[in-house]
């Protein structure tokens, strides 16, 4: 679906374009933060990890800029219909993207605590999981930029893969801890990394659901979404 952008009041279009540009930039930064945090984790690169933590401030600043612009646009332009839905979605999407940035920062902060653990076998799996999550975040934001409801639906379906990864990593790490009790602390950190990645996937789904709402005016049907993730807590009870 093409982005229609031809209001009689041209300044309205300019505001909308600026808003979309800011959200795009913010999404790009969050995606980059995730990839850098995971690279730092796998290589034990403390400088890169510190940079991710520093750069998170820029994501936060973009969030408040989008909030201001959205409130201003609602007040001055009284947007209706799809324009109104876009404003509401923009507010929700940036708060979700900000959370994704926070999770990346959280992962980066753990790098310094895990110097001894490069050999843990779960790490390569976490790297694969993170690239899927980064793709989901990327596609969710692409679907917003392109007003593509079908792409948004596909993002929610693909989140199932992330959940499968999480459940598998959970089992791997629990086994690893039982076999190597001296690495329990490090393994616990990796468990949190996996959980953070799983949450980022959920947030990509949230973005996709907002995009669906912007484009269609309807909320995504339950059946169109991917299945709910098997929670780690539930997993623990079973095991």
């Amino acid at each position, binding site marked *: 679906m093409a982005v229609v952008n031809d209001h*009689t009041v041209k300044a309205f279009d300019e505001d909308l374009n600026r808003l979309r540009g800011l959200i795009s930039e913010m999404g790009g930064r969050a995606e980059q933060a995730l990839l850098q945090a995971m690279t730092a984790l796998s290589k034990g690169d403390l400088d890169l990890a510190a940079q991710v933590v520093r750069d998170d401030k820029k994501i936060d600043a973009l969030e408040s800029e989008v909030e201001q612009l959205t409130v201003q646009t609602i007040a001055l332009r009284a947007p*209706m219909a799809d324009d109104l*839905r876009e404003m509401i979605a923009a507010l929700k999407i940036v708060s979700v993207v900000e959370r994704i940035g926070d999770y990346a920062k959280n992962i980066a902060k753990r790098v310094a605590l895990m110097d001894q653990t490069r050999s843990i076998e779960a790490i390569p799996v976490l790297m694969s999981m993170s690239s899927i999550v980064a793709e989901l975040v990327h596609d969710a934001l692409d679907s917003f930029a392109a007003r593509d409801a079908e792409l948004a639906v596909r993002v929610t379906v693909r989140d199932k893969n992330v959940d499968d990864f999480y459940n598998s990593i959970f089992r791997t790490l629990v086994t690893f801890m039982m076999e190597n009790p001296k690495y329990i602390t490090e393994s616990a950190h990796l468990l949190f990394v996996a959980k953070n990645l799983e949450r980022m996937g959920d947030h990509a789904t949230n973005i996709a659901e907002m995009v669906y709402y912007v484009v269609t005016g309807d909320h995504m049907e339950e059946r169109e979404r991917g299945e709910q993730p098997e929670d780690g807590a539930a997993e623990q009870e079973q095991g």
Partner: protein
Amino acid sequence: MTQDDLTIADPKMKAHGVNVFYGEKQAIKDVSIDVGTDLVTAFIGPSGCGKSTFLRSLNRMNDTVASARVTGQIELDGDDIYAPSMDVVQLRARVGMVFQKPNPFPKSIYDNVGYGPRIHGLAPSKADLDVIVERALVRAGLWDEVKDRLGESGTALSGGQQQRLCIARAIAVDPEVILMDEPCSALDPIATAKIEELIHELRGKYAIVIVTHNMQQAARVSQRTAFFHLGTLVEYGKTTDIFTNPKQERTKDYITGRYG
């Protein structure tokens, strides 16, 4: 367009397949719509879309235009208002109208409101008329502002007060339907807010239809919105749906400011 939850349980007025012509030119094409007492209906659309023409056909105001011709069915409580037996003066008392520009008679405030009830024989005595005038002015939210100067000329009031006087005048003959043709377009925001509050108060007592160019106003005062374009009824629906998720592309383009 017609969904079950859009059905009006006990419509006061029913229009079916209405066409309005000015000479050769067709201004309204096959419009069907019901108007109820519990819901305020707003007509929106660009200039020249026919919304005022259609409004004016609901109390035969178009009869005053020599070239105007109406076909189709418009009923008030089940009676065809274009039937030869319909008394037009009586019809316009039952279906009152408020216009864009406040147009009080050049008479006292009291007489502005009392004139209609007097000529329609609703007030046998002066005391009865006093009661009717006061009640109408109270309902129109004007009583407190004018009760001490009922003998002053209606034209001496402010624009917003004059418009509320015109609403009081319409109410005084105890109508069943009130048609409002851009009632706030000549008023400042405060006077506009008072009229909108009044519309809210009057809802349920009268069937109200309002034509407005101000979409925020339509969104604020109405429960049902009809979008007209080029003489056709493009979309009719719940006001909340029309302004958050219109089904028709033309409606969306208009309400989001992309029309043209």
